[in-house]
C-alpha cells in the first residue's frame, strides 16, 4: 500500500499544570513542587489516514482526542513524535509552506457559535480563506460564494446574515463552508455535531456523509458519540487517557469489541430500543490517572490483574487485523462477545415502526439473553 496521506507516530503532548490547581492539586499542607506537574494529554498516539478514508477517534472527556485533532492540523505542536502529511514532516513546515498546508488541511470546531466572528457576515466569513489563499475568482466572486453555500445546503439570502441570525445548524453549515472554501484534501472535524440538538444533528450528519461522497475528502472525525462515528467512519480509534486502546474497522469494533474499555463504552451508551440487551460491563469509579508504568485503564478495569499495573500495554495485532492494547490479548485469553444483543422472538410482525425493520448485526450463533427482562 502507498504511504498514508497523514501519518502520525508516537505523538506525545504534555501540558504543564499549575501546581496548586486542577489535576494533581495540592493536599493540605503540601508545598508546591519546583517543577510543575506535567500532564500527558497524548501519550504515544500513532495513526494512519489514507486518501479517501474516514477515520473516527472516539473517547470520553479528557482522553486527548481534541489535542490530537489540534496536533494533526498544526495548531498545537506535539512535545515529541512525528506527523507526516503527504510525505512531508509537518513539524518542519516553514512559513511559506504552511500556507499550502493550511489550504489542504482544514478543521471544523465543535462550537460553531464560538468559532465564527460575531461581527462578520456570512459573506466575509466564507470569503476570508479564499482571499488569504488567493483563490478569489475575480469575474465571478459572488457565484463562487453562492456555490460554497449551496454545497452545505444554505441559500443566497444567508450571505448577508450575522452568525447570531442563524440557527445552530446553519452556523455549523457556515463553519463547514468556510473549511471547504480552499478545497482541502483532509478535513478534521472536532465534535461537529455535539453542540447541536437532536433534530439538527441528523441533518449535519447527512450533509457530512454526502460531502464525503461528492468531494472525495478524507475525514478525521473526533467524537464522543459512537452513532456519529458509525454513520461516517470506515475505521475507528478508541482512546483512553491519552493512549489508543483499540483500532479497527468501525463495524467489527462496534459489534465485537475486544478491549475492556471499548466494551464498557458500548455497554454504557443507552440504545433507544428496549429490545436491545447489553452485557453489564462496567468500569469502576471515575477517571483516575493510572500508575505511570501500567495500563491506563487498570484502576477502573473490571478484568485488571497484577500484570496490568506492572507493565505498559502495547498495541498488538489480533487475528482479524485489529490492534488492541490489552495484556489479555498477548495471553490469548480474549474471547470477544457482542455487547449488544436483541431479544429473539420480540420482532413483532406488522406493528414495528417503519424504520425498525432492518436486520440488526448479530454474529451467527449468538445466544440472546432472553430472561433478562423478567
Amino acid at each position, binding site marked *: 500500500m502507498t504511504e498514508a496521506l497523514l501519518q502520525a507516530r508516537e505523538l506525545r503532548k504534555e501540558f504543564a499544570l499549575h501546581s496548586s490547581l486542577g489535576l494533581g492539586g495540592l493536599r493540605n499542607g503540601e508545598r508546591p513542587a519546583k517543577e510543575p506537574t506535567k500532564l500527558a494529554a497524548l501519550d504515544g498516539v500513532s495513526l494512519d489516514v489514507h486518501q479517501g478514508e474516514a477515520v473516527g477517534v472516539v473517547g*470520553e*472527556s479528557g482522553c486527548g482526542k481534541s489535542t490530537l485533532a489540534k496536533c494533526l492540523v498544526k495548531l498545537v505542536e506535539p512535545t515529541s513524535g512525528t506527523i507526516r502529511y503527504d510525505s512531508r514532516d509537518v513539524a518542519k513546515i516553514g512559513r511559506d509552506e504552511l500556507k499550502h498546508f493550511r489550504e489542504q488541511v482544514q478543521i471544523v470546531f465543535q462550537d460553531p457559535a464560538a468559532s465564527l466572528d460575531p461581527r462578520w457576515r456570512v459573506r466575509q466569513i466564507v470569503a476570508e480563506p479564499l482571499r488569504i489563499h488567493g483563490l478569489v475568482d475575480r469575474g465571478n466572486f459572488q457565484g463562487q460564494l453562492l456555490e460554497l453555500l449551496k454545497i452545505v445546503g444554505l441559500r443566497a439570502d444567508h450571505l448577508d446574515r450575522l452568525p447570531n441570525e442563524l*440557527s445552530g445548524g446553519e452556523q455549523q453549515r457556515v463553519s463547514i463552508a468556510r473549511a471547504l472554501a480552499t478545497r482541502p484534501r483532509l478535513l478534521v472535524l472536532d465534535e461537529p455535531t455535539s453542540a447541536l*440538538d*437532536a*433534530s439538527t*444533528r*441528523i*441533518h449535519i*450528519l*447527512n450533509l457530512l*456523509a454526502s460531502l464525503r461522497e461528492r468531494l472525495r475528502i478524507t475525514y478525521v472525525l473526533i467524537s*464522543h*458519540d*459512537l*452513532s*456519529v*462515528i*458509525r*454513520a461516517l467512519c470506515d475505521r475507528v480509534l478508541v482512546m483512553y487517557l491519552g493512549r489508543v486502546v483499540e483500532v479497527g474497522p468501525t*463495524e467489527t469494533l*462496534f459489534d465485537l469489541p475486544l478491549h475492556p474499555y471499548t466494551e*464498557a*463504552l*458500548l*455497554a*454504557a*451508551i*443507552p*440504545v*433507544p*430500543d*428496549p*429490545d*436491545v440487551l447489553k452485557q453489564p460491563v*462496567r*468500569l469502576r*469509579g*471515575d*477517571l483516575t490517572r493510572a500508575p505511570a508504568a501500567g495500563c491506563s485503564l487498570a484502576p477502573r478495569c473490571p478484568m485488571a490483574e497484577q500484570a496490568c499495573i506492572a507493565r505498559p500495554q502495547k498495541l498488538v495485532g489480533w487475528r482479524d487485523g485489529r490492534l488492541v492494547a490489552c495484556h489479555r490479548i498477548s495471553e490469548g485469553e480474549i474471547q470477544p462477545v457482542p455487547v*449488544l444483543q436483541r431479544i429473539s422472538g420480540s420482532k*413483532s410482525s406488522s*406493528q*414495528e*415502526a*417503519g*424504520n*425498525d425493520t*432492518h436486520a*440488526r*448485526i448479530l454474529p451467527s450463533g449468538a445466544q440472546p439473553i432472553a430472561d433478562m427482562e423478567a
Partner: protein
Amino acid sequence: MRANTPLLSVEDLSVDLDVFRGRARVVDRVSLHVAEGEVLGLVGESGSGKSMTAMAVLRLLPHAASVSGGRILLDGTDVLTLSEAQMRRLRGRQVAMIFQTSLLVLNPLLRVGDQIARVFEIHLGTTKSVAHARAVALLDRVGIRNPERVSRSYPHELSGGMVQRALIAVMMAAQPRLLIADEPTTGLDVTTEVQIFDLLSEIRSETNVAILLITHDLGTVATNADRVAIMHAGHIVETGPTRSIFKQPKHPYTRALLSSIPRFDTNSPADSQLRGQAPDIFTLRADRCRFVDRCPAAMEICLDQRPPWVEVSEGHAVFCHLFGGAVASTGGERVVD
C-alpha cells in the same frame, strides 16, 4: 401489578408564564401519574415544559410562572392547597429532586458530609454526630470510595460523577417516596452515566422509591423507564409502557423523534422526519394541536380542534386526531395502523 391509587397524580395541570413578551401557556392541561416504585420517563425537547411540570409538583416554579389550573395529588393530598410551611415538610421528606447542575445545588462553602448530615438533622431530628455517621454511611452506600475522606471534602474537589452520587445521597437521606430526576446525567461521560443509573435502579429496588425521570434522551428512557410520556410544546402527546411506545409509536411526533436518532448499534442511517423547530410557545392558540405545523399527517381538523385522548392499547394513549375520537364521529377518515 400495582393496582391501587398512584403515588403522584397530576390532573389537567396548566402553567402560565408571564414575561415581557406576553403570557404563554407552557404546560397545557397535562395529566400524568406515577405509581409507587415506578419509573416514568418524561421526554421532550428543550422548552417543551417538562421541567416546568416537575417544578410545579415541588411548588418551586420561577416567579414568572404560575399554576393556572389542575390538581397535583401526592398520595391523595393536593399539594397546590398546602401552605408554604407544609410544603417545606413535604420537600425532601416525601419528594426529592436531583438536577443536571448538581454542582450548583451543593453549597461550595460547606463540606459535602455536613450538607448530607443537615438533611438528617432537619428532617429526622438526629443529633450532629449520629447525622455525620449516617452521612458517611450513605456516601459509602452510593458507591463513593473512601467515604470518610470525601465527607470532609468540598464540592469542587469532587468529579462530576462523585458530585451526582453525593447529591443522590443527600436526596435519599430522608427516604423520600418520589424522586424527581431532571436530566440527572447530562454533562457526564457515558461510562459515568451508566453507573449513576445503576445506582438509581439499586436504590429503587431497595426502597421502592418512585422516579420521575426527565430527559431529552430517548436512549436513557428506553433503558431505564417503565412507562414513558412524550411532551411537545406544553402538551403530553403520547403516553404508555416503554416497550409499546418504542415499538408501536403512534403520535407523528413520537415517530419523527424516534426516526431522527442516529444509532451506533445498527448500520441503517437515521432519516429525519422531524421538520422545522419546536413552535414559538407565545404564538400558539389554545385549542388546536401544537404539532400541526411540523406534522406530516396534518388535517384540517388539527388546525382548530384540540386533539382527543385515544387509548390505542392497554395503558397506551395518544393525543391526536388521527386515531379516532372527534374524527371518527364527524365521519372523517379513521387511520389505524
